[in-house]
């Protein structure tokens, strides 16, 4: 039963969807404050390479090494996001161009490969990696075993993050302020909220999430360093934020959907089903669904309720409001 197509695809959809979820949660926080950061892919890759470096170099117990690696990856992501924040918040640069610049700077042909090469990381497998946490007998339970209990601690931590981000945005003073900053920075400013500080903070936290997302690749999914190992996951994370109407819980659903659709072709190919559609079709479905969902919520009423933060992508200049 645990070998049935649905269970296998769901279980791996969750595993493959986890880095997407981290990346999307981070991007969601930044976008809710009005900062669009297209540099997720670059931040992920640098997070992946630095997390991997930490695991190879920290000579401590497995738990400590992995914890340290996650910390290093988050820090690396946040530092990169700091460049973006400085450019778009302080220097009022175009957010789209700056984000793309970040991906080029840090991406496959940039800093991540430079670091991976310079720190000589490509040759060896990870010394420590995230393993399944629950005992084997639990993992053998029908259906819930592989799906719920067969995952690494990063998956369970991501569930906690979803809950925390959702509570933060809807139930705390700070979270409500962020939303005000993203929807109407002028009104937020008039309320005495420091718009720049909020945007900086959330862009940085968003970068930290992206760094962790990268480390999920290099320490859990494919525990080694390969240049460009995220293979576009950062871009998908950005799409997911839109797909989920800027809501954390829907991010989780979307991430697993994207993860499952990305993994489906491998299973279908391995099992050689005669009815299998071309893999390119199933892989393109999430993108097409994102476009469709976007169109459906584009009406004015729906946009106010489900749409992008109104000030997304716009610099806030007090003198020009």
């Amino acid at each position, binding site marked *: 039963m645990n070998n049935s197509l649905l269970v296998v695809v769901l279980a791996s959809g969750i595993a493959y969807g986890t880095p997407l979820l981290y990346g999307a949660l981070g991007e969601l926080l930044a976008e809710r404050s009005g900062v669009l950061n297209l540099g997720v892919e670059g931040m992920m890759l640098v997070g992946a390479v630095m997390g991997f470096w930490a695991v190879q170099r920290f000579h401590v117990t497995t738990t400590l090494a992995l914890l340290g690696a996650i910390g290093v990856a988050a820090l690396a992501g946040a530092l990169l996001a700091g460049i973006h924040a400085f450019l778009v918040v302080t*220097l009022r640069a175009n957010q789209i161009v700056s984000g793309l610049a970040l991906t080029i700077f840090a991406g*496959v042909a*940039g800093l*991540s490969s*430079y670091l991976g090469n*310079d720190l000589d990381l490509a040759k060896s497998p990870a010394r420590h990696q995230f393993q399944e946490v629950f005992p084997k007998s639990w993992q053998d339970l029908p259906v819930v075993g592989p799906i719920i209990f067969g995952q690494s601690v990063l998956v369970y931590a991501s569930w906690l993050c979803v809950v925390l981000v959702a509570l933060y945005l809807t139930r705390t003073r700070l979270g409500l302020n962020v939303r005000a900053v993203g929807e109407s920075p002028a009104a937020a400013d008039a309320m005495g909220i420091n718009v720049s500080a909020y945007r900086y903070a959330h862009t940085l936290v968003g970068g930290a999430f992206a760094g962790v997302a990268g480390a999920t690749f290099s320490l859990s999914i494919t525990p080694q360093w390969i*240049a460009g190992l995220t293979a576009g996951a950062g871009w998908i994370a950005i799409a997911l934020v*839109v797909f989920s109407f800027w809501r954390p819980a829907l991010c989780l659903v979307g991430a697993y959907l994207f993860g499952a659709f990305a993994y489906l072709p491998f299973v279908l190919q391995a099992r050689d089903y005669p009815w299998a559609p071309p893999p390119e079709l199933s892989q393109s479905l999430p993108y097409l669904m994102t*476009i469709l969902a976007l169109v459906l919520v584009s009406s004015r009423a729906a946009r106010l309720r489900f749409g992008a933060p109104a000030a997304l992508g716009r610099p806030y200049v007090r*003198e020009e409001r």
Partner: protein
Amino acid sequence: MIRIERRLEQPRWLTVVVPVVSVAVAFLLATLVLLATHHPPLHTFRRLFDAAFLDNGALTETLVSATPLAFTGLCAAVAFRMNLFNIGGEGQLYAGAITGATIALLLGGAPSAVVIVGMIAAGAAGGAVLAAIPGVLRAFFSTSEIITSLMLNYVVALIIDYLIFGSHSYLRDSSGFEASVFPQGKTLPDEATWPSWAIHGLVIPLGALVAVAVAVVVWFLYKRTRFGFEVSVIGDSARAGRYAGMRTRRKIVAVMCLSGAIAGIGGASQDGDFRHQLDPRGLTQANYGYAGIVVAALARYNPFAVLLVAFLLGGLQNAGYTLQGADFPNGLVGVLQGLLLFCVLGGELFIRYRVRIERRHRTAAETA
């Protein structure tokens, strides 16, 4: 305290000095990166420039990288001028490559001129049709073109994969044993090879000349026609354009189509000038579309500046390929490109705004 205020007029000298200083700062930062990782900076830069512009045949290779960048750069510049953020240049280039290769195979045997014109037209049409999707969605449903154009990049990349790896399509080479083991595109007929001209060892491909022609057309369209004027009005304020009776929706769709068509011609040029087949791996790994946005931004959306920047960045990219491996720091080219872009972007502030550092004066109210 530090005050940032908008300049009412932008002095001419600033638009020259600021970019030059920005580039200098970028190289300074790159020097720091190299020093921090124990690479000799001067020697490394020297090799970079030799490989890009000075070595034997370097300029020819630089043109190979610069030609697609010029197309995608113009694609981005055309749309960004109207505040339409078409980041689908990547997919529109693929689309042009698909339609261009299809026409080339269909017309095989016809006179070369016919085939080449057909490829350019088909490439333009392919790119335009793809770009029309986000254009129409933006114009009639106000759906963000940023996301939809980005999503379509993936869809088209998957379509190319399907055409070559996933099916027995018209474009796939299905002759012989090797082709069945390593799937690849059909080799295009000889008539579909675009001409090139060698001047003192520098080979100029037809695509590069087409890119120059497109830049002239774009410049003329935006500076000298009513269409261009309306585009710039709508770009500054869509509301003002609507009140003045301009058809903003049509303009959005038209500009997106124009933008996509330019990227599409770039795709056809990939088929005709350089690859001579529909080459999925080569096209999707080059990231010309995303780099084109960088080109357009560095050129501040001026079509002629796009050509120049495409040439310079093409040189960098070419040097990256040539020097790959051995003792050359991997990934340096991306780092350098990113730093250049950060610095030029940051420098824009000093063109548009004036930064004033003034001592805080006590006002009468405070002292009282």
